[in-house]
């Protein structure tokens, strides 16, 4: 990282006070990002959230194993396929988790980013380290994005594993009727996890912005989760159809298109563009708020 690394321990004792310091910015930011991830994933709350998400596919699989198949046409999408192919547990759980449970966990992590530091008073110490206001924001957002991926992977991976354990597993019959191998089926499910992760990025940016506004993390968390619910309600009202293309929840359940043969990527692309728009807009709001904010906590 720096040329004086060799003698740095000894140099700690006696560098001249005004010695120029090494300025390797990129390694430093990676180091901060690693430290942020370590902090996030060393926190018990993070594991509690992921554990709660893992419970969804487990509950679904165990319930079906005990009670048997539901009458066809009832229950969430893909529920009927589970008894034939256990790999569908993950997708079914994703359909169940998407409207409320996933947004709730993301709301907790995104809403906590800056407000949580402010409430502990650690924001001032990070800033005088100095972390750099924008740099800290970017690192916090990056860690939230990693959590989004961890959350969706938890649902899909735990779902596939528990399905494997409790039900027969075989070649995957897609929505279009075609059948693909187990390996390709698993790839499709992983691409669903990627789709959902992207779906949550816009919401994470909203949470990040709300988190810069307050020193009460619960406020930012609740506001973020509530916005996700409100957006879905508006998405369900036909009277607001003109608004639908702009809602960040609009393509949330569009991942079924990845289970066609060949896979239809249109909604993936539309979704990614929409989410990128939200990331840019709320990212800019968060940056401008962060740069002008008086840190009094």
């Amino acid at each position: 990282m720096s040329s004086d690394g060799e003698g740095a321990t000894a140099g700690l004792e006696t560098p001249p006070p005004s010695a120029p310091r090494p300025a390797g910015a990129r390694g430093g930011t990676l180091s901060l990002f690693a430290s942020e991830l370590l902090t996030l994933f060393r926190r018990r709350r993070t594991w509690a959230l992921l554990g709660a998400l893992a419970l969804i596919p487990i509950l679904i699989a165990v319930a079906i194993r005990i009670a048997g198949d539901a009458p066809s046409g009832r229950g969430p999408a893909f529920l009927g396929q589970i008894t034939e192919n256990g790999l569908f547990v993950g997708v079914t759980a994703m359909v169940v988790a998407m409207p409320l449970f996933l947004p709730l966990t993301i709301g907790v992590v995104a809403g906590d980013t800056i407000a949580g530091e402010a409430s502990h008073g650690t924001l001032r110490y990070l800033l005088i380290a100095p972390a750099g206001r924008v740099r800290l924001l970017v690192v916090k957002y990056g860690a939230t994005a990693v959590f989004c991926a961890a959350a969706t992977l938890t649902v899909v991976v735990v779902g596939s594993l528990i399905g494997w354990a409790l039900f027969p597993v075989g070649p995957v019959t897609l929505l279009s009727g075609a059948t693909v191998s187990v390996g390709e089926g698993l790839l499709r499910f992983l691409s669903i996890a990627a789709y959902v992760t992207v779906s949550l990025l816009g919401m994470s940016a909203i949470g990040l912005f709300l988190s810069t506004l307050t020193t009460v993390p619960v406020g930012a968390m609740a506001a973020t989760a509530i916005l996700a619910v409100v957006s879905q309600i508006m998405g369900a009202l036909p009277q607001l159809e003109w608004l639908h293309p702009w809602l960040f929840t609009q393509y949330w359940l569009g991942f079924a298109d990845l289970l066609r043969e060949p896979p239809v990527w249109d909604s993936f692309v539309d979704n990614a563009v929409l989410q990128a728009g939200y990331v840019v807009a709320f990212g800019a709001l968060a940056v401008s708020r962060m740069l002008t904010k008086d840190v009094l906590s």
Partner: protein
Amino acid sequence: MTGGSSDGAEVGDRGDRRDLAIETHGLTKRFRSQLAVDGVDLAVPRGAVFGFLGPNGSGKTTTIRMLLGLVTASAGGARVLGTDMPRHVDSVLPRVGALVEGPAFSPYLSGVSNLRRFDAADRHAPRRTRAARVDEALDRVGLSHAGGKKVHAYSLGMKQRLGIANALLMRRELLVLDEPTNGLDPQGTREVRSLIRSLADDGTTVFVSSHLLAEVEQVCSHVGVMSAGRLVAQGTLAEFRDGGEARVLVRTPDGAGARRVLQGLGMHVDDDPDRAAVEHTVAARVGPSEIAPEAVVAALVAGGVRVRGFEVERASLEQRFVELTGEGFDVVQ
């Protein structure tokens, strides 16, 4: 000794700007209707141990937050280590260690993890030496044994030590310590004092805010006093003490005669009949007469007063502080 905020242009003229570790001009912060800091002109020489005094709510912490770029000034400006703040915050702050308004840590992380985290936030701090520097800083504040414990299990004093360790992770040119001995036992207070002395001996400028005057008196070379958002006095400790009026104490059985003579010299004699009668002591403030002590004795003797004892009393830091900031809970708001 500068008279604080009224004569603002003075700081720049006091000598070479590079000799100042902290320098502010008309630094002001207004929160909505309240003026928290009002035209402060600080001048902290390099190498000084500067005691930043003031009652609670006098604007000390807000001033410190502005110096560290946490809060934007409403008016005026600050230079820290010769560089404009907050414009060059990224190049100045790596050279500054600080404890601001009490220590703060993530309670679910250990002391070591917390320090490593803050160190990782400083992009100038070499990663290779991080573990060693964290250990050394913990050792310096006597926390080596507790480094692996989660911070929520720390006592207030331990958190305070950890906060000081955080300020010492790198070699700093300037340390800003806001109430560093808060929550420490007498033993810990002594340790912090000797730590400040040893840092100052190494050439580090130390800016300590405190309301514990005795503590400041023991370690500081300079003081500044805040009251109601204004800097009402600053200078070296000696200048500051001399700023107070001297008092003379005369021990004599001839109380009435002594009072007459002292009043004749233009001094303000304390009206304290008990003291005169019981202790045979008459006290007087020198007042505007600025008369030399030996002249006072000569005048007393010439006036036929039997002088058994004579003492010149300098104002203590506490007296000066109270003179400047008001008595008891009656502090200026």
